């Protein structure tokens, strides 16, 4: 069952993780540029639809539900805060709650007070905007395997990428180890006071983690991780100094850019120079890397369409926000409506649901295996 789904030509395959992220970031950008609840609901709907259609079978694929819960919670909290901390005085009062008087040092903070429909709506719109952004990030996480994303970093950053992959892998193991130790410690008597109990739990878990890390490091080392390849000490020195120089340039540039009193010449030019040197350093580092990638995710038409969709949605969203302000930021006293262009922004995000291949590790198959 596993092999047959994989080998069917042109059918199921995992999309390049970067494409999903580009799409999700595009949609999130558009969502962050509007408070129109209709548009936001449309964006959330299309995101959910795509996730349902193209979610992969790995454990991360199941995380979307958590993000959806988080999004719902955000909306609820936003509204509740509007009620708790009061809002505008003006507007249609829905519920006339008494205001709780606060001491003078808390001036500026209102507790309760009349609840107006305007305040509620403003809270709702705002919450929806945040919820849409959260949902977009969640979608990217459940559509693209974060490990594949980390693994597709440029060759010069490969070592850092691997370290991150390992870190991601270690977490579930740490949880396993914690569960095991807790069960084991319940089998013996011993200190039950605060510090003692913590120690009983932490010492074995940390020892276990240390041993595992050493075993992993040994395993990686014997398999060639971090081979210096054919680089001469001189080449390594050049690469190192280039990257160090770039880092300094970027730091100084960023600082000068943020601080208006700094000389202008240190700002954007410095930042630009830093970036250029960084690229040079990465190229230099990449050239000496002798590593290859096994079956790298290809970048083909579906990837282009997906990433392009994200870009189009972001650009159109930005345009709507600037050219059709009334549509993008509707007042709380009138019913929101959509222009044809805004409708397009909300709906076009669905495209990847049909334009991309079914993931090779679709959840259905996973269940068949289990």
């Amino acid at each position, binding site marked *: 069952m596993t092999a047959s789904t994989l080998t069917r030509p042109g059918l199921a395959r995992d999309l390049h993780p970067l494409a999903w992220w580009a799409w999700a970031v595009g949609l999130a950008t558009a969502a962050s540029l509007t408070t129109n609840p209709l548009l936001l609901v449309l964006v959330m709907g299309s995101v959910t639809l795509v996730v349902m259609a193209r979610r992969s079978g790995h454990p991360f694929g199941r995380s979307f539900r958590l993000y959806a819960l988080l999004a719902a919670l955000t909306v609820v909290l936003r509204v509740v805060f509007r009620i708790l901390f009061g809002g505008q005085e003006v507007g249609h009062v829905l519920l006339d709650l008494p205001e709780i008087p606060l001491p003078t040092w808390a001036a500026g903070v209102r507790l309760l007070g009349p609840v107006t429909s305007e305040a509620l709506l403003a809270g709702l719109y705002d919450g929806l905007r945040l919820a849409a952004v959260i949902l977009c990030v969640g979608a990217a996480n459940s559509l693209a395997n974060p490990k594949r994303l980390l693994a597709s970093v440029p060759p010069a950053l490969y070592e850092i990428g691997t370290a991150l992959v390992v870190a991601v892998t270690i977490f579930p193991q740490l949880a396993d180890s914690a569960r095991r130790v807790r069960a*084991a410690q319940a*089998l*013996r*008597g011993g200190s039950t006071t605060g510090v003692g109990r913590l120690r009983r739990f932490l010492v074995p878990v940390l020892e276990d983690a240390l041993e595992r890390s050493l075993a992993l490091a040994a*395993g990686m080392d014997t398999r*060639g991780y971090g*081979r210096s390849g054919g680089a001469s000490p001189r080449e390594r020195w050049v690469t190192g100094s280039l990257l160090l120089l770039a880092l300094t340039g970027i730091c100084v540039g960023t600082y000068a850019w943020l601080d208006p009193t700094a000389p202008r010449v240190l700002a954007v030019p410095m930042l630009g120079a830093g970036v250029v040197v960084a690229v040079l350093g990465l190229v230099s580092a990449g050239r000496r890397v002798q590593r290859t990638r*096994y079956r790298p995710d290809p970048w083909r038409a579906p990837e282009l369409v997906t990433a392009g969709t994200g870009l189009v949605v972001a650009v159109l969203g930005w345009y709507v926000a600037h050219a059709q302000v009334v549509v993008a930021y509707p007042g709380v006293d009138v019913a929101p409506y959509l222009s044809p262009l805004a409708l397009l922004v909300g709906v076009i995000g669905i495209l990847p649901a049909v334009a991309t291949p079914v993931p090779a590790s679709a959840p259905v198959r996973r269940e068949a*295996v289990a």
Partner: protein
Amino acid sequence: MIELRGIGFHYDQEVVLSGVDLTLDEGELVLVSGRTGVGKSTLLGVVTGLVPRFTGGVLTGDVLLEGQSIVEQPPRERAHLVGFVGQDPLAGFVADTVEEELAYGMEQLGTAPETMRRRVEETLDLLGIADLRARDLRTLSGGQQQRVAIGAVLTTHPRVLVLDEPTSALDPTAAEDVLATITRLVHDLGLTVLLAEHRLERVVPFADRICLVTGDGGVRVGDPRAVLTDSPVAPPLVELGRLAGWQPLPLTVRDARRHARTLPELSARDPAVHDRVAAPAAEPLVVARGVTVVHGRHVAVRDVDLTLSSGRTTVLMGRNGSGKSSLIWALQGSGRRRSGSIDVAGSDPAELAPAQRRTHVGLVPQTAADLLYLETVADECAAADLGAEAAPGTCRDLLDRLAPGIEDAVHPRDLSEGQRLALALSVVLTARPPVVLLDEPTRGLDYAGKAELARIVADLAADDHAVLLATHDVEFAAHVADEVVVMAEGEVVSSGPPRRVLAESPSFAPQVTKVLGAPWLVVEEVAAAMGGVAR
């Protein structure tokens, strides 16, 4: 091909190896054996380069590969020459699916993509794991993981494969699979394999030579028959051969059967053989009826009935993942059980508070080290006394009885596997539970360690404890069991006296039974019977 010349290795005061010379030829399987802690792993580490880089200590001497010294090269620069698979394959996995793991080493070496693709497919077929290619490494069984780990180092086409205890955590069938794979690599690909293993009975038939690490820093290398004649560690088959004076020593069950025809007719009516079976009806301490344990949708234990009686040792056997651990934790009371009843001295352990539970049922988990958390043995014992509200010194007395001669000031992590197990067991026994459960206690123990553990278990049973232990080790089970319960898929498939259950099963039969047939389980019985014949 690989040559170790005058290898010496020492920590500050302790000399581990000195003046070791060893030459490995092409297409040869060399078994490294010896007692626990004599430096088997160190010897392997010298070849892979992990010693001294990951262990500290001082290494002297030279390692040559095809005449070139590689002793100065770190492990990563030897990756295309020497492949290494550690004791716990899961701990060494870097990627998360089988296919990516197989490719990882080649990615590091910069192998061309087409070559990588081809080698991954070849390796998948060679090891018979093609159907696992997209699986998450963590969902594989122990034997599958071990084969993937071997495959992952094979893809870089190393000249030498170094394996540290490749079958110690596996059940007999999975171990046979892995060893068959290794032998095939040696025969078909001409790979040189250096392998350390405690369970000699599994590996000896496949070894071309044995390198016995003697413990005084030296090694003895030679033909298995020659080395095993007086090796301190030897599989039961060899002990049987030594006892009967068979020449040359039998290394496989087939050899031994041929020799066995020359044995005088032994009387199976020996009283020692029957007394354990016909033990007086003992008082049942644990009565479990219809126990079912469910993890999510997976039924780990299904409707199991089990009775543990005082003074009797029950051995739980079965594949990895057949529900042994789940059953043990359910019997202890902290493992959640879905249905069924468990009665320990009139109460259900699941309904007791943890402190009371400890006084009913003692359990030593698979990783005994999880129980320990203090810096010295003395601290551990004191904490155990305090926790169990026992008189000071109770735990220490128990420990002295179980494993005499452990210093107070030693760190528990510095103890040998067997000593650490004894310490964990003493800590658990301090609460005076009448029932003792041991989950996989034989892991990492050599023959002497197992004999010691067998004595401890026998003592516990003699003290009227009811003992239940889960193990893969058929030879150990044959030594200690009064009753054997075999589980598969969470159900009990057979149970009864070892003489019946173990002898009936082709995969669980101990070596002596395979050679001499039904009533004989262990060498000691044969020795006793032969003594009788001689008289």
